[in-house]
């Protein structure tokens, strides 16, 4: 499978959702790493080496917008591919802010079916 080489980081504090996306993506053949709060997310982002990051915004310890902001100005040890926001927050101004900070996409969890999330993820790899 071509997906084999693709490595995805999921930063999500809700255990059930984190494990859900992990399972969903692994079934599709992706390599999946997870972080359950902002601090863990920060450490893994600094390390780098992901083709795609799915980043929640409301996170304990450090919120997603801050992580996104920091990622923009930091150079990780290994490069990071696209950062896609996957959240249930969605004020227009917030979405705009995330795109301004370099987010490649903005997905709203409750509005999408899992297959739609998968389709979006595939599209980021295709566009690359």
């Amino acid at each position, binding site marked *: 499978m071509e997906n084999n080489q693709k490595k995805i980081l999921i930063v999500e504090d*809700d255990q*059930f*959702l984190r494990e*859900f996306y992990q*399972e*969903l993506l692994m*079934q599709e053949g992706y390599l999946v790493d997870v972080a359950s709060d902002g601090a863990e997310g920060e450490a893994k982002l600094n390390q780098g080496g992901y083709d795609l990051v799915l980043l929640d*915004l*409301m996170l304990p310890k450090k*919120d997603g*917008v801050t992580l996104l902001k920091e990622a923009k100005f930091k150079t990780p040890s290994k490069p990071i591919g696209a950062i896609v926001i996957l*959240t*249930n*927050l*969605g*004020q*227009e*101004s*917030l979405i705009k802010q995330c795109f301004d900070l370099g987010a490649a996409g903005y997905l*709203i*969890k*409750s*509005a999408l*079916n*899992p*297959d739609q999330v998968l389709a979006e993820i595939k599209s980021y790899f295709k566009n690359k």
Partner: protein
Amino acid sequence: MFNFFKKSQSQQSGVPKKRESLESLWRLTKILMENLEFEDVVYKTVNSLLNELGYLKSGYRIVVLSLVDEEAGGLRRIALSETEEARRATSVSTIPFERIVIPFSATQNLGIKVLMSGKPEVTTHWPDLLSPPLTAEAALTNQRSAGITTSMVYPVFARGKAIGTLIFSMVKKYQDVTEEEKDLLWGFTELIGLAVENSMLFTKLKNTSQQLTQANNKLQQLDQLKDDFVSVASHELRTPMTAIKSYAWMALNRADVDLSEKLKKYLVRVLMSTDRLINLVNDMLNISRIESGRIELLPEAVDLISLSKDIIDEVYYSKSIEKPIKFHLLEQSLPKVFADPNKLRQVFLNIVGNALKFSPPGGSIIIGFFTDGQSVETYIKDEGPGISKDDISRLFKKFGRLDNSYTATASSGGTGLGLFISKSLIDLMHGKIWAESEGVGKGATFKFSLPIATNELVEHADQYQIKPAGDIRELEPAAL
């Protein structure tokens, strides 16, 4: 008038005094009219006669205003002039001045008597004024301490009703009170009645207005709390709802065992119900935002034909797979409208979604347009069950879902809020939205009109933007 007075003055000896009385009354009127607050009016009432009108010189020493207090069941002492005699009387009194209430049942008390009869009385014996509640002995002590010889009690009227009394206490005998003085005291008490009544009304009105302001502030705080609550609750609700939806989807689509048809049906219903819950939360959040002014509107020129095509595509692929429906888009050359594309899309989706929801399988939905050069009217016509005349007025109200369409909602995810939101959004975009139906069984047509995007409107689009009022909370759940 002036000449008449001058002439009279020189000819008649009684008239100058009459004129003095009139002038005094006029001055009193002025003093009392300057004040509207109850506290000020009663203060002036008991002091102005002695000071401003110089009645101290005529032997007057204490003026006391009492008013009917229905709650206390008696005549309550309200105000007392600021004189040395008054101070001496209160300093020895067994009951503080402001706590003296003469019960209505004490009919031998001159205050109550005057109140009942409406006629003035005179006494040289203070127990007539203060007992009960004071003992005769205590009342006499007060009188001796003040050094008062005579007290006259006058009724105070307002709108023909006795509302209290005025007591004028003097260091002279009643025989020495002139007719002019008596005339003036009558005039004075009449004036006091009106002034007190007005000030009571004014103060009551002011208090009521203050209470209303407070109540209004409180309501605004509560409203803010409600908005905050809806905002936080909707996010907190959405996380578990997303988990339910995700795992139900997983069970249905990625199960590692074969599912029975029954199990599939159950899971589909879990998914549909979760979607319905999510919609409801979204709608409530939308309404909360619209009502609290935290909505953003960025109008621009929008092409209705291409928007319609997008909507049909979206709805067709997501929904009409479940139900075969034919869409007919009546294309024509059309000016662009001035609207926020995202909000218009939301309205459009809602109406087309409704049409689809209520259309019979195999039915048609027509989307067409009409323009009068000022605005463009979009209509969406379905072959659904139609709407009765009575129900049409309820359509755009909050939770205005109709009884006969209720059964359809369990499977359609309706919340009863969609049309209310659509109307709010169209209103904000200076448009109109309404529904027409020939009646039950004859389908329905929903129409909305929006202003044409003239060059002038588009050039000054920033003037028509609506920015969220107040602080934008940084992390807010998505309203879709």
